[in-house]
């Protein structure tokens, strides 16, 4: 089976709470892990996609014949070759598999070809003749709201309106600001790739790096015009995802080509094509007005949030809902007026990315909290602590927070960690802003400290039927070795569920061998998406239920074997023991009569839709985090070095502390990337930097020291008490960096990412506070003032 080596992992692990190592860790470091781009089958063909060089155009004609005339080309397909539904989409199928009459964004797929050699395929795609009639693009979301529809579904994806409390109330102190966040890319290292293999039954097997096998399958099947049972997906090695693999990219194209040619077809995007092949983080423009009383209590938050969703819907509806619900940040406020819009434009489509709507608003609400602190002449940390949400407080959606809400604890932890003591790199000059460019001397640098706090939902919200399935097969061999085989469709995208699955088996069943079968759509039901920090809770919950079902069957078999009532049989790490007679029987003995094979489905508590005023219990549970950033800024050149980020993070319970630390460090890298460098640069909708030469992500010289304190307060509803941990590090780390740059420079800096010229070419001091007033001591370790 292509690419299956390395996908089935065998482990024997300890239980929960231990820093168990990843079974795929060493193979990945040694270059031995098979990623989706390593898939191979003899006699396979290579696919390539033709994409629009234009941002907005009408398509007059598509002529595939010049491509087909090239020797070695086996198929060339376009919109008219899609036998089933011509469109796809996560929420609404509004995006064409191939553009047929209209191009709505730069890089939209027009056609695809398959050839004997990847080079031939590339040339053939270029040979397809397309006649375009250019149309003026609409690239500004505010303009799009007033423009003619760019799509039959219109330009307003969704308006989320929240009216909470008294809209007319006015605070003693009012601060206002407008903030902007640029378009971030997930920049995963493994480009989109897959291998489609036509089946003898008219179906197709697709080996693919994705975040959600079953939802891909359903979208593919619809466009192929096949029943879902004939479309079988298998997870291939995923080289990072971060939300960018939630949407279909090459899946349908590959399956169409394979079925057309009757041969396996492989496709791998180049780095450049990858930037066109997946959705990005929504750019946002955000207006905020915060009201507080003289004591520093928040009175009202008003916001107008405009998210540019690009050409197609993707998950914009859910992203904009998050932006609205979390617009004030994790603070108690009785009155809120929020209008959040997700808008269609001719920019590249935007959808899911780590932090999902919370990241953008965090830049706004945290800048506002600092402004408010300055206006009130109070310490910004004190202001946050005073207003921090507590358990049983209400969100602005009216939802009462029934889970653990350790906002105070995460803030105190983040600011309580030690400040950096000095420069500790081997070569101190490299640790200054500008790094290897050696552009600064110590005397050119000023230091600043900033704090930011955030929250976000776990799992899917607003009444979505969110569930995960898990199947466990327990069997014994002739030597009485018991093996638990786990069938679960959870996409391992780096988060470490492959490690956790073994730990859960060890915890719930005992010291058995564990085999984690390759995730697919055939052997087990959907696990839902590896998104929204939900798999530890959801797939973990499903596996917990499956283990309980296995124990139950073992107990029944033991009761029969021991001839005692099932109620008298207790499960004890792989053995069953009668509480009446004390007699024991091992799991291995109980499996002689045959293996146990059970599948269970875990649903989280149902959530509700938001009503017309944006009120409702829309969310399952929330995760909280605080970050303190220490930065050095070269004011003359506007260059920044993030020296340290310390964080307190609410994790419920750390089931694998090492894996949690990995999520925190990686998430902070992605968070500070957005703060100081990461942005898709658009020129009238055209992507200007589709490469790792020009789309910059942090290197080791950009990465700060990270200190973390995990706040472990078990979440009552969560399986094992564990909250998700993947997203919070990415949310408030960047806003903390921006706050620190403001503190170092005295500049207002309302846009992320901060560009060097925003600092260096700024003509003066714009902040509302007095920059000579050094607040950094209050943000440092000794928070005596708290």
């Amino acid at each position, binding site marked *: 089976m292509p690419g299956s080596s390395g996908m089935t992992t065998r482990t024997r692990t300890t239980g929960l709470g231990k820093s168990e190592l990843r079974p795929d860790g060493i193979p990945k470091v040694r270059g031995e892990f098979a990623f989706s781009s390593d898939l191979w089958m003899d006699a396979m063909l290579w696919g390539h996609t033709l994409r629009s060089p234009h941002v907005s155009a009408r398509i007059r004609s598509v002529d595939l014949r010049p491509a087909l005339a090239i020797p070695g080309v086996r198929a060339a397909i376009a919109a008219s070759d899609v036998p089933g539904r011509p469109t796809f989409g996560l929420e609404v199928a509004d995006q064409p598999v191939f553009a047929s009459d209209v191009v709505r964004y730069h890089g939209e797929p027009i056609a695809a070809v398959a050839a004997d050699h990847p080079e031939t395929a*590339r040339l053939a795609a270029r040979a397809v003749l397309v006649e375009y009639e250019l149309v003026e693009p609409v690239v500004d979301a505010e303009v799009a709201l007033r423009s003619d529809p760019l799509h039959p579904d219109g330009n307003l994806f969704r308006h989320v309106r929240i009216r909470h409390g008294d809209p007319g109330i006015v605070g003693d102190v009012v601060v206002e600001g407008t903030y902007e966040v640029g378009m971030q890319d997930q920049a995963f290292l493994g480009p989109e790739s897959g291998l489609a293999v036509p089946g003898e039954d008219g179906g197709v097997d697709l080996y693919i790096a994705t975040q959600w096998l079953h939802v891909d399958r359903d979208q593919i099947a619809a466009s192929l015009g096949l029943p879902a049972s004939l479309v079988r997906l298998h997870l291939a090695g995923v080289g990072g995802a971060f939300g960018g693999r939630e949407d279909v990219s090459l899946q349908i194209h590959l399956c169409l080509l394979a079925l057309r040619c009757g041969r396996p077809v492989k496709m791998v995007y*180049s780095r*450049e094509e990858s930037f066109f092949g997946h959705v990005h983080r929504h750019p946002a423009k955000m207006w905020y007005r915060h009201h507080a009383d003289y004591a520093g209590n928040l009175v009202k938050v008003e916001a107008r949030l405009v998210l540019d969703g690009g050409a197609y819907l993707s998950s914009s509806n859910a992203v904009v809902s998050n932006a609205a619900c979390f617009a004030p940040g994790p603070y108690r406020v009785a009155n809120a007026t929020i209008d959040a819009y997700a808008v269609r434009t001719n920019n590249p489509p935007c959808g899911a990315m780590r932090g999902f709507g919370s990241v953008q608003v965090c830049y706004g609400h945290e800048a506002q909290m600092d402004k408010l602190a300055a206006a009130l002449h109070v310490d910004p940390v004190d202001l946050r602590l005073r207003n921090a949400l507590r358990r049983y407080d209400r969100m602005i959606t009216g939802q009462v927070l029934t889970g653990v809400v350790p906002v105070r604890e995460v803030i105190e932890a983040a600011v309580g960690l030690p400040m950096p003591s000095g420069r500790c790199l081997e070569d101190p000059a*490299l640790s200054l*802003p*500008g*790094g*290897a*460019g*050696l*552009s*600064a*001397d110590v005397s*050119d640098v000023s230091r600043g400290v900033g704090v930011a706090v955030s929250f976000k939902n776990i799992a899917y919200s607003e009444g979505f039927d969110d569930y995960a399935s898990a199947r466990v097969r327990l069997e014994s061999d002739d030597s009485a070795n018991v093996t638990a085989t786990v069938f679960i469709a959870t996409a391992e995208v780096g988060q470490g569920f492959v490690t956790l699955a073994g730990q859960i088996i060890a915890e719930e069943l005992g010291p058995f061998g564990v085999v984690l079968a390759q995730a697919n759509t055939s052997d087990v039901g959907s696990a839902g998406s590896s998104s929204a920090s939900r798999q530890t809770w959801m797939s973990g919950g499903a596996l917990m239920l499956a283990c309980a079902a296995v124990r139950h069957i073992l107990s029944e078999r033991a009761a029969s074997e021991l001839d005692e009532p099932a109620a008298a049989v207790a499960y004890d790490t792989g053995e069953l023991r009668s509480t009446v007679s004390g007699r024991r029987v091992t799991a291995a003995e109980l499996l002689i009569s045959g293996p146990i094979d059970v599948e269970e489905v875990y649903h989280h508590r149902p959530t509700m839709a938001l009503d017309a005023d944006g009120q409702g219990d829309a969310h399952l549970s929330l995760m909280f985090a605080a970050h303190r950033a220490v930065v050095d800024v070269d004011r*003359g*050149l*506007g*260059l920044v*070095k993030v020296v340290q980020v310390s964080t307190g993070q609410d994790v419920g319970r750390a089931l694998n502390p090492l894996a949690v630390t990995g999520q925190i460090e990686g998430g902070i890298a992605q968070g500070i990337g957005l703060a*100081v*460098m990461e942005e898709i*640069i658009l*020129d009238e909708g055209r992507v*200007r*930097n589709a490469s790792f*030469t*020009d789309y*910059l992500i*942090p*290197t*080791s*010289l*950009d990465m700060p020291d990270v200190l973390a304190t995990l706040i472990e307060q078990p979440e009552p509803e969560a399986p094992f008490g564990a909250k998700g941990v993947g997203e919070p590090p990415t949310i408030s780390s960047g806003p903390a960096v921006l706050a620190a740059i403001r503190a170092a420079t005295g500049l207002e800096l309302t846009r992320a990412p901060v*560009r*060097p*010229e925003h600092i*260096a*070419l700024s003509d003066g001091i714009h902040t509302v506070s007095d920059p000579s007033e050094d607040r950094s001591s209050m943000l440092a370790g000794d928070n005596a003032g708290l």
Partner: protein
Amino acid sequence: MALAVPSTLDEAIDAVAGAPDAQLLAGGTDFCVQVSFGLRRPTGVVSLRRVDDLRGWSADSDTITIGASTTYTAMIEQLTGLLPALAGAARSVGSPQIRNMGTLGGNVATASPAGDTLPVLLGLDARVGLAGTTGRRSVALHDLVTGPKRTSMLPGEIIVDVTTRRPRGPQHFLKVGTRNAMVISIASAAVGIDPEAETVSCALGSVGPVPLRAPQAEAFAASEIDWAAMTASDSALARFGSLAASEASPIDDHRSSAAYRRAAVAVIAERGLRRCLRDAG
């Protein structure tokens, strides 16, 4: 695609003469990227990797000659003492893997306005040694680089080495990019002083179609420095930076704006001269 792997310079010249469309391959850090991006489809390649005549370096009392195949890593490891600014420029290039492969000759031949070693070489009045079927010649770097990624090299010519004057005082290379490593420069400056001749050199990168000298700034600084004390007034240093900035001709692109590039030149030129005076003082 035909691949030739000569082991002497003469073989290399013959290989190129026999395949006029062939692409010369040294470290491949520019060329291979262009191939994989589909921007070039070479019909032939002449690899210079095994040509020993292009390796190594030598120094006499007045000049330093560096073989074209010298990698960035070799410059860092072997030339930090003699040419610290060149070693600094080499250290600012790419990642360790890139520095292990990329060569000085390749940086010159690519002739990118952002080529990191070029301002350093230009500041040291470098001359480029070329070899072809008609023999050898030496061309000033200033004359070799004629435009963005354009040179006056003749068809079939190979870069053999680069010869700089031996610095008689400090030289500093400063590079500005929006990341702390592995970044293409959006402005760079190589500033040096010669206390014996009482002259200043200031060469700029990424702020014009080619790396360029700032002669007005150089002359101004030379006249303002107190060469006995190795000092200059703050206002003179600032004016030196402004003059250098005014001699740059930067553009707006997706990496930065012309306004920022010009401002950055003023800052790094001034800082470079301060460092030189501090070192010499």
